[in-house]
């Protein structure tokens, strides 16, 4: 394929010039902004913080502080638990949602379902957090309904702890869970299910023997994306956690504001490593799983 443009009169030099002109600007831009900024962050993680300011002397005290104080282990643990819970709920809700959408016949309803699931993506997480504040407040809709139905005697506290954060985070991330599953399900050849039915498989068998295994790549992509986004969430735990939900993104902002940049840089590094290790690890796991699936065929 490469000779397509190399074959023009300008030849190989023109081609490499064109490539530089096309890809150079984005490459340099990314390096100048993202890579330089990340390097400065990494360097700051090894600086000394006097308690009022940062001094550019090389130490590893911020790392030592982070890894020896059990408070930070607790934060990481709470964050992982929150991300796992959120991902699990998103998958349990998201899979049937995606499946149901593929079963809709009427085009108008398909559009309605798409808008319902994906349009919240267009509103910021701040708007959605405020929405949950209204719905889950002491005098809010859910408590009003619970009281009217005599399910509770006094308003329940739903906000400002892990419950509220999880409810809102699932709401923020569900579109990201549904989308990969939906696109894989849409690509599955319906003829396979029909063939299974013709051969006498029940609908349940057809689902578990055909649709479910074929949708596995989508499920995996959805799980990975949802987990990573949950680990990185800042707005939702900040606005709905009421200080009871401590996660790394909150600490990073707090420490930058308190001028303890080395500690913030260490927390940022830990967050990146956690997220990238999860992605890499699950990629490897998935590749092995896919290989065994191939073997069985």
């Amino acid at each position, binding site marked *: 394929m*490469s000779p*397509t443009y190399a074959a023009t009169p300008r030849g190989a030099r023109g081609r490499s010039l*064109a*490539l530089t002109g*096309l*890809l150079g*600007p*984005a*490459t340099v*831009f*990314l390096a100048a*902004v*993202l890579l330089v*900024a*990340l390097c400065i962050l990494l360097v700051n993680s090894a600086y000394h913080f006097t308690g009022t300011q940062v001094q550019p002397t090389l130490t590893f005290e911020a790392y030592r502080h982070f890894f020896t104080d059990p408070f930070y282990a607790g934060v990481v643990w709470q964050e992982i638990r929150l991300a796992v819970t959120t991902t699990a709920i998103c998958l349990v809700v998201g899979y*049937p*949602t995606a499946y*149901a959408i593929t*079963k*809709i016949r009427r085009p108008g309803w*398909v*559009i309605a*379902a798409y808008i*319902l*699931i994906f*349009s*919240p993506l*267009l509103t*910021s*997480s*701040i*708007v959605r957090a*405020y*929405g*949950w*504040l*209204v*719905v889950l407040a002491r005098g*809010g809709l859910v408590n*009003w309904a619970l009281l009217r139905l005599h399910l509770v005697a006094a308003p329940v506290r739903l906000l400002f702890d892990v419950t509220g954060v999880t409810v*809102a985070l699932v709401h923020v991330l*569900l579109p990201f869970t549904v989308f990969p599953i939906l696109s894989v399900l*849409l690509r599955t050849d*319906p003829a396979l299910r029909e063939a299974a039915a013709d051969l006498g498989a029940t609908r349940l068998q057809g689902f578990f023997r055909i649709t479910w295994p074929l949708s596995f790549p989508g499920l995996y992509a959805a799980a990975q994306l949802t987990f990573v986004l949950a680990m*990185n969430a*800042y*707005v939702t735990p900040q*606005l709905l956690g009421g200080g009871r939900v401590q996660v790394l*993104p909150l600490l*990073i*902002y707090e420490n*930058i504001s308190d001028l303890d940049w080395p500690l*913030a*840089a260490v927390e*940022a590094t830990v*967050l*990146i490593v956690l*997220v*990238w290790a999860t*992605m890499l690890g699950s990629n490897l796991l998935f590749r092995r799983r896919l290989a065994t699936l191939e073997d069985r065929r």
Partner: protein
Amino acid sequence: MSAAPRDPVAVALWVFLGAVGVYMLAPLAFVAIDSFNPSTYGTFPLSGLTLRWYQNVLQVPDFRIGLQNSFLVGIGATALALVLGTLAAYGLARYRFRHRDLLRSYLLLPIIVPAIVFGAALFLLYIRVGLYGTLTGLVLGHALLGLPFVISITTASLQTTGREYEEAAMDLGANPLVTFFAVTVPSIRTGLTVSALFAFVTSWDQVEVSLFITRPRNNTLPIAMFNYEQNYQDPTLAAISALLIAFAVLLVLVAVSILKTQEYRRLVQRE
């Protein structure tokens, strides 16, 4: 949903989908309702209707400045991401070269860097180079976040449109620049529109990065709202949120009308 009218599986799926729909819409719907709530604490049910929170929106200077900044930054970041991203996408889609996959992964890097980490890093960079608290700094940061969307969407759309017409134009004597604007751009119009929409929304809703690189009193709208939500929590926020939801609905309608002719028809015919 299914051929049989009372198929229990189909009914269950419908009910489930309906419940999910209610869950997805509930917070947005109640934001809209709460914006007319006379009670400062957002109690339910409403004791009457008022428009005073909408009037209040106009009186909070932070919101006015924020709205203006968000528009400027959104447009600047979209333009920058679109130019850099389309050039890069063209190079990735139309040329074969060594390490192409590596370069592509590199260009998509902003997706896998947590925004909060990027924000902290950008803050440390900007205070050194004097970009802290500037609109230029915001435009650069937001453009970087939009870039991967532009590149991946535009690359995909370039790959689905063949290069035959480009070659025909070149054979007929058009230079590469003319070919690009007269042939390539019109054929990837949908991809470019969607890219621009993604880039703009990314900037418009951005919180985590902006938080670090804006100055107090000179914020973007989401940051102004974020601060207001932490300090006041009265329905003024509902009013401005309702206005933003209306704006988002408008964006959806624009997107649907653009995509309807192509993508949607394909999706529906699949099932």
